[in-house]
């Protein structure tokens, strides 16, 4: 039978009545709080008994204190005098228990109590959540700018979408924590004037919803990358966070044990968190770059390699929705077919590439084809995506390109493509290119016929295959 139990403390810093109630229930079940220096609280087995718990705050304490200060110990003595014994403390939060039937409460003046909580909150809770809130605001500004500039790159990437969802959850949690606190403080301050204490309400619903959304998003995200090398990077990122947390905690606890002064401990712990974060970021970047620039490595999805001109080339044999052979009477030998992309719940973007292999006997005669299909799963994003694709190729505002040589998408008759809208890329001096942007109901296709102009019949075949995607 286990004598030690650990439990996550889900309550907000200022919801002391809920914490007291939880601890009283735990004691009645035979578990006494012994340690509360992290979010996982430790309990030891005791005889089930009715105990009273009460929390007060000591604003001068810090998580970095090597040991309780004399004034903190003096406060404990005051409490002991009325039968309140210290069970555990978590930096400023001092948790006491009392075995008496009807003990004198620890806090008897709501004005003093509320102000003491607020003084403590300003030094810890509000600083932490305030910093998280500001970072999430800053991040939101950046992501909104990115979404306005390139919604496709944000929403067609499962990693980016997962990051967006995480930050939305973090922003919701910090906003709900801070607003719940300030709402309570405003009411409690007023009520204390009239001699009574308003009990806090914490935003548990928001936190649970945020947590569930992040977990579901993470599951969906990992499902999209299960067969992908990106899973390795996700595991590296999770490992990085775990190592940073563990190292920072180890440094802080070790320095505390060695009785290092609180300020020195704080500086060294913060410095360690920066150094270890940057060092691990460097390691991960190195791994990613090594993978990216390892020319000798073969892609997981390659069908094989061949030698040409002293170099090794990969070839692929993916199933493409449209092939040159569908439109032109040509043998399929000598081609490499590659289908790559990514998608999220909002958007997907896949690219099909059909290229002649350099080692093919008839290489010069082989026609190349490339098309990118953007699947818009949320109709509200359709116009933004279309505009991004049009503006991406628009050189009319690019001063580096001389007038007369600029390219732009020109609207064309959509009937041959059986689409809603069709644009063709035109260069001012050389005229239209075999490069089209074809807009269907829920997907947009950008297709390039390299070095050949498709006939009406060929366009009709392409339209049938691509329109049905």
């Amino acid at each position, binding site marked *: 039978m286990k004598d030690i139990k650990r439990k996550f403390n889900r309550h907000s810093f200022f919801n002391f009545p809920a914490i007291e109630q939880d601890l009283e229930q735990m004691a009645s079940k035979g578990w006494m709080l012994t340690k509360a220096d992290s979010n996982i609280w430790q309990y030891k087995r005791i005889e089930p008994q009715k105990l009273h718990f009460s929390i007060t705050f000591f604003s001068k304490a810090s998580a970095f204190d090597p040991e309780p200060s004399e*004034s903190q110990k003096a406060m404990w003595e*005051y409490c002991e*005098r009325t039968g309140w014994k210290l069970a555990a403390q978590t930096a400023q939060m001092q948790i006491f228990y009392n075995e008496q039937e009807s003990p004198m409460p620890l*806090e008897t*003046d709501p004005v003093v109590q509320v*102000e003491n909580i607020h003084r403590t909150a300003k030094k810890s809770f509000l600083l932490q959540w305030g910093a998280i809130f500001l970072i999430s605001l800053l991040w939101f500004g950046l992501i909104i700018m990115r979404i306005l500039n390139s919604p496709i790159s944000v929403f067609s990437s499962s990693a980016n979408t997962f990051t967006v969802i995480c930050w939305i959850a973090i922003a919701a949690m910090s906003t709900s924590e801070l607003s719940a606190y300030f709402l309570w403080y405003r009411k409690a301050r007023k009520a204390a004037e009239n001699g009574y204490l308003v009990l806090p309400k914490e935003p548990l619903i928001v936190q649970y919803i945020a947590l569930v959304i992040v977990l579901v998003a993470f599951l969906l995200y990992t499902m999209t990358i299960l067969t992908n090398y990106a899973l390795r990077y996700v595991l590296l990122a999770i490992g990085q966070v775990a190592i940073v947390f563990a190292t920072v905690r180890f440094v802080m606890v070790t320095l505390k044990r060695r009785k290092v002064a609180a300020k020195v401990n704080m500086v060294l712990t913060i410095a360690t968190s920066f150094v270890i974060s940057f060092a691990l970021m460097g390691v991960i970047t190195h791994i990613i770059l090594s993978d990216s620039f390892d020319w000798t490595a073969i892609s997981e999805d390659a069908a094989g390699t061949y030698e040409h001109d002293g170099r090794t080339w990969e070839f692929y044999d993916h199933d493409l929705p449209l092939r040159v052979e569908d439109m032109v009477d040509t043998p399929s030998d000598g081609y490499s077919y590659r289908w790559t992309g990514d998608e999220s719940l909002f958007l997907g973007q896949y690219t099909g590439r059909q290229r002649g292999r350099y080692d093919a006997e008839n290489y010069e005669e082989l026609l190349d084809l490339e098309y990118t299909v953007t699947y818009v799963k949320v109709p509200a994003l359709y116009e933004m995506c279309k505009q991004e694709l049009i503006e991406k190729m628009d050189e009319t505002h690019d001063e580096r390109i001389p007038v007369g040589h600029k390219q732009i998408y020109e609207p064309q008759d959509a009937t041959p493509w059986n689409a809603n809208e069709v644009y063709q890329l035109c260069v001012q001096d050389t005229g239209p290119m075999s490069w089209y942007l074809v807009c269907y109901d829920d997907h947009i296709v950008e297709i390039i016929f390299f070095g050949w102009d498709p006939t009406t019949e060929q366009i009709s075949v392409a339209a049938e295959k691509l329109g049905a995607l």
Partner: protein
Amino acid sequence: MPREKFRTLTEQMFYVLLCLKNECYGMDILDRIPAMTNGRVGVGSGTLYNLLEQFVEAEMIRETKVEGRRRSYILTDKGRDMVSKEFQRIRAQAADYIAVFGEEDLT
């Protein structure tokens, strides 16, 4: 409108300051207030500790002796003023009561 700090005193603040007319150990106030009020008023340990810290900070009391963790305090002139103002306020309230209900209603 929330009160300006110590502009008016709560009952417990008032009695803590009263106890410190003469030098007294902080912890002894826990017993003195119930004794002074026949048990009508009591002050919690957490509340007392925080009040003493804040009163010292506001220079309404000062430390007179430190013996290990035991500290004794005494009221300052500023603190005396505050208690006096509070008393005037309570007395004015009492006077208003009498004006409305008369002295015969007092028991």
